């Protein structure tokens, strides 16, 4: 037998109280793991989303550049529109590797499953050159640029149970489109969109000759500053670099992180107080036993270590439980984040790495070490004769 076994047996003594204390630690650890996992996951997902847009520069109508960029990222209505002539003018620029105009609009669609809001994106073949990794799971490209045809994103097709050859009626614009293709899953917002030929989209939404934005991939990203400078004189447009958008969104998230970190800090403090309270109660209940331990030879340090081990054990078990909850309920957390956030990238939002798990486990043990200090010191300082004779 040793102190660890004794601590373990004491820990099992009052199972309900131990379970409640472990629950408190587990919740704090689960919150911490989820928030830190979200912090890492969001950044990765955002970078992946931006990379998967395929362009480094976005030309949009004048207005808030970041609003425009996030709307291009997440889709949705409310975009300002610009003349397609801008595209036709700048396409000749030799610094451009690929250029893809697009029109984003939303409308009500109705099918067998009822009515729903859908994001429609008018594109040209340049879209496929800008995103060479996009492939078809079935079907293929539009017949021509004005055909009443649609290509559906993977999730949009799955949600609506659509197949190539199906006809979809969009009640908001009173148009019917034939599904000619379904894209493979990309892990981005494109998965939830319905793509139309650019010309068709412009006519259908009453936006002839207008587009939402132009995605541009430069031959050399180092030329971004001069490219932006040259477009400065173009009336009614602005140039947004996706690196800037990434930085701005991450800056906004950093502010949110301060809030979430505060929540995590409060959870940890509550856990520490909870554990401290439980262990202190346990120490007071065992006053006479502690006296006996001292009588049979336990030093102050022995008693201190015993109580400290108990506390650390409670927190370590709580840490394991919390990590398990965070891993198992990660999808739930992700769903909540998506509900709360105005913009969330596609793919996994909460990424729990091995390093994070290790750090969280270490954190739980540190919580135990801190929470155990005072109860352990109280137990160690008990005088044996008073402890044994207490409440006799």
């Amino acid at each position: 037998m040793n102190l660890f076994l004794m601590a373990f047996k004491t820990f099992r003594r009052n199972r309900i109280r131990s379970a409640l204390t472990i629950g408190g630690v587990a919740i704090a650890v689960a919150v911490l793991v989820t928030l830190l996992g979200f912090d890492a996951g969001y950044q990765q997902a955002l970078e992946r989303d931006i990379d998967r847009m395929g362009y480094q520069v976005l030309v949009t109508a004048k207005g808030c550049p970041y609003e425009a960029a996030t709307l291009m990222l997440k889709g949705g209505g409310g975009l300002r529109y610009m003349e397609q002539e801008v595209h036709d003018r700048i396409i000749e620029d030799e610094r451009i590797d690929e250029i893809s105009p697009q029109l984003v609009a939303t409308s009500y669609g109705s099918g067998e499953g009822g009515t729903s809001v859908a994001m429609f994106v008018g594109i040209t073949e340049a879209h496929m050159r800008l995103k060479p990794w996009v492939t078809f799971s079935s079907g293929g490209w539009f017949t021509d640029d004005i055909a009443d045809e649609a290509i559906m994103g993977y999730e949009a097709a799955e949600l609506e149970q659509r197949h190539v050859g199906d006809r979809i009626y969009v009640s908001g614009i009173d148009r019917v489109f034939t599904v000619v293709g379904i894209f493979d899953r990309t892990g981005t917002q494109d998965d939830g969109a319905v793509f139309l030929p650019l010309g068709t989209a412009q006519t259908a939404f009453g936006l002839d000759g207008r587009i939402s934005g132009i995605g541009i991939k430069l031959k050399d990203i180092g030329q971004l500053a001069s490219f932006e400078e040259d477009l400065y004189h173009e009336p009614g447009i602005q140039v947004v670099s996706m690196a800037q958008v990434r930085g701005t969104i991450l800056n906004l998230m950093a502010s949110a992180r301060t809030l979430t970190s505060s929540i995590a800090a409060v959870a940890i403090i509550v856990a520490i107080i909870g554990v401290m309270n439980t262990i202190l109660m346990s120490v007071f209940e065992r006053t006479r036993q502690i006296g006996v331990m001292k009588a049979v030879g336990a030093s102050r340090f022995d008693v201190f270590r015993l109580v400290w081990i108990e506390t650390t054990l409670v927190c370590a078990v709580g840490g394991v439980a919390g990590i398990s909850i965070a891993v198992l309920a990660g999808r739930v957390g992700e769903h909540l984040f998506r509900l709360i956030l105005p913009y969330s990238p596609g793919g996994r939002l909460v990424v729990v790495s091995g390093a994070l798990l290790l750090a969280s486990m270490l954190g739980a043990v540190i919580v135990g070490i801190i929470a155990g200090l005072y109860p352990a010191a109280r137990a160690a300082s008990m005088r044996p004769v008073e402890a044994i004779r207490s409440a006799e």
Partner: protein
Amino acid sequence: MAVDAVDLAIEEGDFVSLMGPSGSGKTTLLDLIGCLDSVTSGRLVVLGHDVSDASESDLVSVRRGAIGFVFQDFLLIPELTAAENVQLPSVFARSMPDKEGAVALLEQVGLADKADRLPKELSGGERQRVAIARSLASSNGLLLADEPTGNLDSANSDAVFSVFERLNAERGLTVVLATHDGAIGSRTPRSIRMHDGAIAEDRRS
């Protein structure tokens, strides 16, 4: 002041009972002899160590592995088995406690077959015998018992007292026990009667 002007020498191998009414100072004297408490004045020598001005850590050093205690309420650790309770002093003495050693001590009190029982699964007499076995694990010559039969019926009291008698006779342990029970006190070779913190009578039979 619980004890005052006590002039007492207990020899190695003595079997002594401390008698007297409540508040007479029996338990305090036992605590002092057991190095659980320290004197405020005078001189106290235990097992050859002058502990008159000893610090708490010095007192721990003297009692660890040398002095065994038995209490009226047994004071066993409820979540540990009988054998584990007996191993407890060795855990703190860092002497690599083993179950076989604990069972051997339990055998001396007739409880080897109940080594794996928890205290709640034992009778009062059995619990006290486990406590005696534990005291043997922490004792290297001196065994102190405070009202060891106080919570037991007469049959169990007899059984427990017999264990003390045997340990004194066979192992030469010095046994000091505080008791209210005149019948128990009269069976020890030396009986000290206390009154108001002082020794009123020191009788050898």
